[in-house]
């Protein structure tokens, strides 16, 4: 089930999405129709099925048609996967930052951080290991960079 927490951030409408998106979710009802620029944080979205993808694209392509500005922050791994396999999933909205999955080589703990897409580009998609906050071991990027960042390399 999709959840939305809304607030005003520097004059822009901000919405934090969480949960799952499937056939039962109507984004227009949950988010509402924005009256100005919209920032969508997708950090807590864990899953989206194919009907959810259609509902998502129906909503954001409507915003696009109405020439409303929207941008995405902290695209969760579930949505990064979608934006990689469906070219127009973001409906023209810029993706400012994405979730970054890591896994500790020592204790196997999975970690998720966020990174700005412009930083990923400047690093030429080479992601250095980070320190595991649980055991201090080395945690490596837990995906294949060429695939995980493929949407950022599309022309």
């Amino acid at each position, binding site marked *: 089930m999709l959840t939305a927490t809304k607030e005003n951030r520097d004059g822009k409408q901000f919405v934090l999405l969480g949960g799952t998106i499937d056939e039962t979710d109507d984004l227009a009802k949950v988010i509402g129709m924005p009256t100005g620029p919209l920032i969508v944080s997708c950090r807590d979205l864990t899953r989206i099925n194919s009907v959810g*993808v*259609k509902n998502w694209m129906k909503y954001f392509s409507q915003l696009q048609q109405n020439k409303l500005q929207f941008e995405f922050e902290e695209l969760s791994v579930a949505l990064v996967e*979608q934006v990689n396999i469906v*070219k*127009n999933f973001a409906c023209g909205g810029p993706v400012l930052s994405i979730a970054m999955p890591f*896994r500790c080589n020592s204790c196997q703990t999975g970690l998720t951080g966020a990174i700005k897409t412009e930083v990923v580009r400047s690093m030429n998609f080479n992601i250095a290991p980070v320190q595991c906050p649980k055991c201090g071991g080395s945690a490596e990027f837990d*995906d294949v960079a060429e695939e995980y960042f493929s949407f950022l390399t599309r022309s």
Partner: protein
Amino acid sequence: MSVNKLVLVSSGPEDLDFALKVCQRFRIQLAVPKSWHELLETLSESYSTYIFWALGDLELHDASHPFFIGAIEEALTGQVDPSRVFALTTKPIHHYQDMFEKFPTIKGRFQHNLIRNYPPGCEILYARLLEYCSAPEPSGLQKLFDPTTKIQRLALKNSSQKNSAVSALEKTLLKTGFDERIASRIAQATDELLMNAIFDASRDSSGVANRQMLDRRVHFAFGPQEPVEMEFGLNQEYFAICVTDHFGSLKKETLFKFLHQNYQDKDYQLRKYGPGAGLGLYGIVAGGLSLLISCKPGKRTDVAVFFPRVKSYREFRKSFQFTAFF
């Protein structure tokens, strides 16, 4: 008397190493023809030959190459059982649209596709896949596991049970020790398979699709002869889930149309009305999962998804992947 054998059409050393392991496991002979003439001769020996044919390499587009891609039609027509022909490719089949446009006659020639990731142990699953090919009426998961592996079964009687079945599966996988992201991916794939079985597979008594146009939120009971069944199997190497409907309405052409789409390079067009465009099945394969489909027209369709048992998502992305249609 002809002996069952696997013919490898590839010059790649990794393919050869992999094919050898599969043959050892399945206890069949391996033939690696070096010329077109040798290939045709080997294929003419038995209709039941299994074939692994490396596709997608640019060098195969050169007509002077011994295994020129444009001549596949000639080699495969009438000589071999089409359900035993596997394309070996570096990426999933939807990445090869240029090749299929250039050589359209080969498009329907490969019912199965193995991605050329050969992690240790994958030959166990692939040998079972070859065994599955030779089964008289392949269906269900048991043949794809060791006979001692317990296959669990569950039948849904109402469309309203879909979401709770998916959530319960995800929780069980997490308890079993699956990575959170992989468990979520399995749950998502199961959701797609169930939706297809509930809404897209259903036919009325005259064979007409009767639930495709329904709103996916609608709840209804399945007829007594139409339960949607789920099977789960787990061993040390992989996990599989299979969803079965009792209509057997999935056509090879429809499936290939879905799997050959490439929404990574071209825009997905939203439809206002009508059935889906196979986004669920496309997403399963494009997302790196393995798909096995077995359809007995008018009787049943089994759609199974396979996942390697790995600790990290990176390992999963580098693990085995295949699509197969029977």
